[in-house]
């Protein structure tokens, strides 16, 4: 199974997790790290490392972040190993909901692609 962690700017991730948990009425069990720009990045490097470690044996780890190129995302890039630990940025609520409710297994690159497409498909214009 694929394991997930969520790394975002301060205040973003907790609200996203809260919204998903309110919807499904269950704890989602995805480790969350919120990065505050006032703190040294070394703290977060260690937190991310521990979060990945806490997932235990998984077929792969997908790190979800809020904004590509920003500090939370940049910190995570150091952990990326193709096929093992990958990063998916621009995480939106549909993506987090899907990650929390479906047991994605197998290849982490495919899971990343699946969730990216899922996030895109669920951005909608109304009336369309």
């Amino acid at each position: 199974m694929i394991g997930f962690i969520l790394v975002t700017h301060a205040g973003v991730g907790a609200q996203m997790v809260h919204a998903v948990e309110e919807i499904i009425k269950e704890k989602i069990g995805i480790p969350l790290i919120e990065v505050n720009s006032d703190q040294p990045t070394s703290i977060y490097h260690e937190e991310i490392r521990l979060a990945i470690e806490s997932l235990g044996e998984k077929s792969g780890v997908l790190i979800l972040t809020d904004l590509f190129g920003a500090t939370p995302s940049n910190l995570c890039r150091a952990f990326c190993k193709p096929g093992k630990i990958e990063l998916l940025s621009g995480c939106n609520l549909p993506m987090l909901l899907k990650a929390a409710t479906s047991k994605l297994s197998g290849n982490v690159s495919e899971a990343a692609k699946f969730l990216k497409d899922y996030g895109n498909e669920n951005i909608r214009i109304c009336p369309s």
Partner: protein
Amino acid sequence: MQNIECQKEMTIKNRLGLHARAAAQLVKTANRFTSEVKISKDRVTANGKSIMGVLTLAAAMGSTIRIQCQGPDATEAMSALEKLIDAKFHED
């Protein structure tokens, strides 16, 4: 295994309509059964076992949805979904 097909039209009665928490309850109920569950509104049909799918229907209070269940436990699935909608998702 017997393959049963049933369908029913229902009106959404809770004030907030088929919003996220209600959709999640509906999906959780549908997932208790092996039968396929489809929910339609107007010309849009969604997988009744997907929260985002059900949300795409944007079914507000008063709207009519069509539930289609197909599979060995379709009757039971329909009955459970009917109860949930009739109970206004235990909201209001």
